[in-house]
C-alpha cells in the first residue's frame, strides 16, 4: 500500500479547473450576479454591528443625542431587513440557476449519449453510467447552488470586518492576526512533509476496505456454503486492520497539534489577547477605550473564516472531480453523421478487407472479406473470443472499422445516416431492449405509422399476440408496470418489433433462442418467421442449429479461416470439421439428442 506513481498534481489541478469552467460555462455569468448579491448581503450583515459601535460611542458622550441613537438602531434594523432580502434573493436565484443547469446538463447528456458510438455503452457497466448521472450531476448541485456563494460569503464578511477594524485601530487588528498566524504554523506542522503521499495512501486503504467489503458480502453464499466463514471475512478484516493502524499512526502524532491549533482560534483566547493589548494601549493613553467595542463585537470570530474555507474546499474538490468526469464525457468523440444519403433497399452486404481493434495495436479482426446476399443466411462460427460478435456489431456500427469498409448495397455504412442504416439493418440480440412506455409504443418504435392489423400480424408471427391480449390493458399495458414480461416474452416482443421494422438485412444472435428455457420453442418459431427472405447474419453458438444455412463463415482469432456451405465444410477437414466433431461428441455427452447415452444421474434401483 505505497503511494505509487502519480501524475503531476499541478497538471491534474489545471485540468480540473478547465473542466469545471467548461461545465459551469453556461451559468457562470448568472452565478457572478448571484455572487455579487451575496457579497452585498454579507456587507449588510456587518454594517449593523458598525452602527451599533456608533451607538456605543454616542452613549459614552456626556449628553447622548437620543434621536441619533434611535436612528442608528433603526437603520441597523433596516439594513438587516435588506440583508435578508438580498440573501433570499441570492439563494433563490442560485437555486433556480442550478435547477436550470441540471436540466440543461441532463438533456445535454442525453443528447450526447445518443451520438457516441454504441460501443461506448458496451465498454461501460450501467453502474458507471449511473455514477455519471446520479452522483456527478448531484455533486454539481453543490458547486452551482452553494459552493461559490458560500466561499464568497465566507470571504467578504471577514475581509470587510478586518478592513473596518484596521481603520478603528490598526494595532489591535494586528493582534488579531497573531493567533491566526500561529494557527498557520501549527497547520503546516500538521500537514508536514509528505502530506500528499499520506493522503494517497489513505485513499488507497479506503478503496481496499470498500473492495473487500463488497467481496465479503457478495461472496458470502460461497463462503458459508463451503463452511469457511472466515475466508472472505479474513480479507475484509485484514483491510480493516490495515486501514485502522494506518489511520491511528497518522492521527496520533498530530492529535496534540490539532488540540493546540483548535484552541488558538477559540474566541475566548482571542478575546484575552485583545483585552491585554487594549488595556495596555489605553493605559499608555494611545487608544480611546470605546474602540475596544468593535473588536469584541466583530473581531473574535477570526477563526471561523479559516474553518469555513476548509469546509468549502472539501466540497469543491468533490464537485471538481465530478465536473472532470462530465467534461471527459463531453469530449468523447461522436459518430460522424452524414448530411443526407441513400437508403439501401436490396440488402447486399459486403465486408471489404475489414480490420478492427478495440484498442490500438490489439486487432480483434484481420482483413475480413465477406459477402451476404439477399435471401440467404450466413452463420458466423468459431471458438469463443474469435471475433464473431465483434464482426456482427461492426455491421450495426456499434464501432467503426479500423481499416477496410463495410457496405450495404454498395454504400459505406459510414456514409449512411443512422436512420437509413437502421431502416436497412435490423437486429435481435441477446439482451432485450424495451423502453419505458406501453407495449404498443415499443412496437411502434419500429414503424410509427403501423396499423392495428400490422401490429397484430407481427405479434401473432412472433407468438406473443395471445400473451399481450391477456395483459390487463392489452397493447396499452405499460412495460414493467402492468406488463410484466418474462425474458422469453420480452424477447418475442422485440422479435415482433424487428418483423414490423421489416429491414432487408438482419443481424441475429442464435443465443437469443435460449434466453429463456421455458419458452425456447416459441422464440424459435418467432425467429423462423423473422429470417424468411432477408439477408441474415447469425452469430452461432450451437452448430446443429445451422446445418441448413446457406453459408458458414469460420473465424479463428479474428481471421476468416474457412467459408462455404456447411455440408462441404463438414467434410473439408478444417477447423469447422473439428468443431463439428467436438460438437457431436458434446451433444452425445449432453445426451439430449441421444437417448441411449446415460444421463448425469444414477440409474433407477438406487434408492
Amino acid at each position, binding site marked *: 500500500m505505497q503511494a505509487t506513481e502519480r501524475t503531476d498534481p499541478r497538471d491534474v489541478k489545471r485540468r480540473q479547473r478547465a473542466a469545471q469552467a467548461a461545465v459551469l460555462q453556461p451559468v457562470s455569468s448568472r452565478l457572478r450576479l448571484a455572487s455579487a448579491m451575496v457579497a452585498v448581503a454579507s456587507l449588510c450583515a456587518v454594517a449593523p454591528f458598525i452602527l451599533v459601535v456608533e451607538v456605543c460611542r454616542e452613549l459614552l458622550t456626556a449628553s447622548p443625542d437620543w434621536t441619533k441613537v434611535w436612528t442608528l438602531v433603526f437603520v441597523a434594523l433596516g439594513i438587516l431587513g435588506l440583508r435578508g432580502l438580498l440573501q433570499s434573493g441570492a439563494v433563490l436565484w442560485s437555486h433556480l440557476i442550478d435547477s436550470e443547469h441540471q436540466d440543461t446538463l441532463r438533456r445535454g447528456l442525453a443528447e450526447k449519449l445518443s451520438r457516441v458510438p454504441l460501443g461506448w455503452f458496451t465498454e461501460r457497466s450501467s453502474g458507471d453510467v449511473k455514477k455519471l448521472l446520479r452522483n456527478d450531476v448531484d455533486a454539481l448541485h453543490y458547486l452551482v447552488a452553494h459552493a461559490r456563494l458560500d466561499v464568497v460569503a465566507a470571504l467578504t464578511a471577514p475581509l470587510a470586518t478586518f478592513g473596518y477594524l484596521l481603520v478603528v485601530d490598526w494595532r489591535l487588528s494586528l493582534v488579531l492576526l497573531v493567533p491566526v498566524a500561529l494557527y498557520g504554523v501549527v497547520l503546516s506542522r500538521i500537514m508536514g512533509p509528505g502530506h500528499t503521499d499520506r493522503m494517497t495512501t489513505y485513499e488507497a486503504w479506503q478503496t481496499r476496505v470498500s473492495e473487500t467489503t463488497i*467481496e465479503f458480502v457478495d461472496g458470502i453464499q460461497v463462503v458459508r456454503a463451503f463452511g469457511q466463514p472466515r475466508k472472505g471475512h479474513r480479507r475484509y478484516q485484514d483491510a480493516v486492520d490495515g486501514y485502522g493502524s494506518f489511520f491511528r499512526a497518522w492521527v496520533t502524532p498530530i492529535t496534540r497539534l490539532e488540540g493546540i491549533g483548535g484552541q488558538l482560534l477559540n474566541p475566548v483566547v482571542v478575546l484575552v489577547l485583545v483585552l491585554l493589548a487594549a488595556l495596555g494601549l489605553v493605559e499608555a493613553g494611545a487608544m480611546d477605550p470605546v474602540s475596544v467595542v468593535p473588536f469584541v463585537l466583530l473581531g473574535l470570530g477570526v477563526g471561523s473564516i479559516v474553518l469555513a474555507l476548509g469546509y468549502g474546499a472539501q466540497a469543491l474538490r468533490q464537485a471538481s472531480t465530478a465536473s472532470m468526469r462530465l467534461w471527459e464525457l463531453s469530449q468523447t468523440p461522436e459518430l460522424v453523421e452524414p448530411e443526407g444519403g441513400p437508403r439501401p433497399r436490396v440488402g447486399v452486404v459486403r465486408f471489404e478487407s475489414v480490420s478492427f481493434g478495440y484498442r490500438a495495436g490489439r486487432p480483434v479482426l484481420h482483413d475480413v472479406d465477406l459477402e451476404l446476399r439477399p435471401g440467404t443466411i450466413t452463420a458466423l462460427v468459431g471458438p469463443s473470443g474469435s471475433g464473431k460478435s465483434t464482426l456482427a456489431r461492426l455491421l450495426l456500427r456499434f464501432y467503426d472499422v479500423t481499416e477496410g469498409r463495410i457496405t450495404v448495397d454498395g454504400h459505406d455504412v459510414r456514409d449512411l445516416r443512422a436512420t437509413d442504416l437502421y431502416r436497412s439493418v435490423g437486429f435481435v440480440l441477446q439482451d432485450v431492449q424495451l423502453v*419505458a412506455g406501453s407495449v404498443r409504443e415499443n412496437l411502434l418504435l419500429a414503424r410509427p405509422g403501423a396499423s392495428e392489423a400490422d401490429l397484430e400480424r407481427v405479434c401473432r408471427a412472433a407468438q406473443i399476440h395471445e400473451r399481450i391480449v391477456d395483459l390487463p390493458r392489452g397493447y396499452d399495458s405499460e412495460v414493467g408496470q402492468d406488463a410484466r414480461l418474462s425474458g422469453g416474452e420480452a424477447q418475442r416482443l422485440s422479435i415482433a418489433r424487428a418483423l414490423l421494422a421489416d429491414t432487408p438485412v438482419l443481424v441475429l444472435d442464435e443465443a437469443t433462442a435460449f434466453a429463456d428455457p421455458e419458452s425456447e420453442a416459441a422464440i424459435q418459431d418467432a425467429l423462423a418467421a423473422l429470417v424468411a427472405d432477408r439477408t441474415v447474419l447469425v452469430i452461432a453458438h450451437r452448430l446443429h442449429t445451422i446445418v441448413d444455412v446457406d453459408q458458414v463463415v469460420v473465424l479463428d482469432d479474428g481471421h476468416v479461416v474457412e467459408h462455404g456451405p456447411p455440408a462441404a465444410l463438414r467434410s473439408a477437414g478444417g477447423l469447422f470439421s473439428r468443431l463439428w466433431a467436438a460438437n457431436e461428441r458434446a451433444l452425445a455427452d449432453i445426451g439430449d439428442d441421444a437417448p441411449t447415452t446415460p444421463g448425469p444421474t444414477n440409474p433407477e434401483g438406487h434408492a
Partner: protein
Amino acid sequence: MIRTVLRLVPDSERATVPRYLAAVVVHALAQSVAYVLLVPLLEALFRGDLASAWGWTAGVAAAAVVVAVAGYQQAVTGIRIGVGMVHSLQTRIGDHIATLPLGWFDSTTAGRVSRLVSTSVKDAMGVFAHLLTPMVAGVLVPAGVAVGLLFIDPHVSLAMVVSAPLLYLVNRWGRRLYGRAEDRVHTASEESNARVIEFAQAQPVLRAFDAATTGNRGLQEALESQRREGRRLVWASVPGLVVFSSLVQATFVGLVYLVISQTSGGSLSAPAAIALIAVSSRFIDPLNQAAELATAARGAANAAERIRALLETPPLDEPTAPVRPQDSSVRFEAVSFAYADGATVVDDVTFEVPAGTTTALVGPSGSGKTTLLRLASRFYDVDAGRIEVGGHPVDAYPSTTLMEQFALVFQDVYLFHQSIAENVRIGRADATEGEVLSAAAVARVDEIVERLPDGWDTNVGEGGTSLSGGERQRVSIARALLKDAPIVLLDEATSALDPQNEAAVVRGVHELTRDKTVIVVAHRLSTIRHADQILFLDQGRIVERGAHDELLAAGGRYADFWGERSRAAGWHLVGSATTADGSGK
C-alpha cells in the same frame, strides 16, 4: 443523536468518555464565564477605572486558561475515541454480518454495507472528533451567559432566556422545510436519472428506430417534471434557509434596543449598557455556529442509526443441542414461504427425497424452483411447515454442520478476486494439491487454465468477471466436487453455452452427482429424463409429480412441457439454398 452514538463507542474507549464529556462541558461553561466577566470589565474600562479592569481581565484570562485546557482535553480524547471507534465498528460490522442469515443478503447489500463501513462509520466518528463540542457550546454558552447576566441585568437575561427556545424552534422549522424540499428534489432527480440510465441502456434500439431523442416519452416527461418540481421546491424552501440567520441578527438588535431603552430611561449607566451590548453579541455567535452544524449533526445521527440497526439485526439462531444427520435424505413438509416483498413463492409444498436418489424440479420460470433449493440449505427460514435433512429439522443443526451436508452449484456463481487455484480450493481448505487438480480436471477447469496467461495463478478478476458464464460454472462444479458432500443442490445453467462448454459442465455434474442425493432445477432433457422423481411446479405449488414415463403417459402439464422442450432441442435455421423438408422447426 448523542445516545445512539455513545452506544457505538468501543469498550476499550468507554472509560475515556466521561473525561471527554466533562471536558466538553467545562470548555463551554468556562467560555460563558469569560463572557459574563466581560461586563464588569468593560464597565470599569469605560468608567476609566483601569485598575479594576486589569483585575477583571485576570479573571477572564483565568477562564480562558480553563477554556484552552478543557478544549485541548476534549480534542485529544475526542479524536482518540473516534479513531478507536472506526476500527472497532468496522470489525463489529464484519463479525456481525458473518452471522446473519443468507436471506438478509440481496443484490443491493454489498453497496449498502460498503457505504456503511466507509462513510457512515466516519460520520459517526465525526461526532467525537469535531461535531459534539460546538453543538454543546451552542447550547451551554448562551445558557451560561443568560444565567450569568441574571445577576447583572435581569431584563436582558430574561430576554435571552425567552429568545433562545424561539430561535431553536425557528431553526428546526427552517431546516425541516429545507430538508424536505431537498428530499423531494432528490426523489425527482432519482426518477429522471433512472430514465436517463434506461435511455442509455436502450440506445441500440432507440437509434435503430430513430427515436433517440424525440421518441422517448418517458425521458422527456421525467426531465420536464424534474424541472417543474425543482423550481417549485426552490420557492418553497428558501424562507427556511434565510429566516433563521435574519432572526438571530434581529435578536441581537432587539437586545441592543432593550439595553438602550433602559439607558435612556436612566436605569442603566452608559458603560454598563455598552458592556451588555458587547456581551449580547457573544450570546448569538455560538447559536449561529450550532445552527450551521445542524445538517452535519443530522447526517451523523442517521449514520449512527444505520450502524445500530445493522448491529441489532438478529443473527441466524444456532441450536443449543446440536444434532448429527442420520442419512442424506431431504424432506419438505407443507412448506410455505414468501420473500420480504410479500409475494408467496412456495405454497404448501410437500415432498421427500430419499437418500441417494435424484429429484428434478421442473416448471415455468418464477414457479419457485430455485427458492426450494435455497430453503433446503437454509438461506431462508420457512414461514410455515418444516424441512428435514438427514432426519432432523434444518434449524436443529449448527449452520456449519448443515452446510457440510450440501454441495451447492447455483447459477449466480461468485468467484473471489484471487487465482483460479485458490477459488477451487475454497471447496475444501485442507485438500491436497492432487485433490484440487483432479477435481479441476473432472470439471474441465484444467482446459480453462491452459488457455490463461498465468495458468493456475491467473487472477479471475472481481467476482470472476474475466471468465465466461460457462467457465465460472465449471469452477463452481470443481469446488463442489472437492467438497464431496452427501447432498447435491444443483441449479442447471440456462445461459448460452457452446456444446463443448456444456459437455464439460455435464461431465462434471455427472461425477458430482454419482451416488449422491440430488435435487436439481433441471432444464436439460437428459437430466429430467433420468431423475427418479420429477416435481412439476407452477406458481409455488407442485402440480404434478412422478417419474418421467408416468407423467408423459398422464398427458398433463408435464407432457406439454416435455413436448415443447423436445421440439426446441431439434431446432435449426434453414437457408434458402438448401430446402431440407421437415426441418426448420
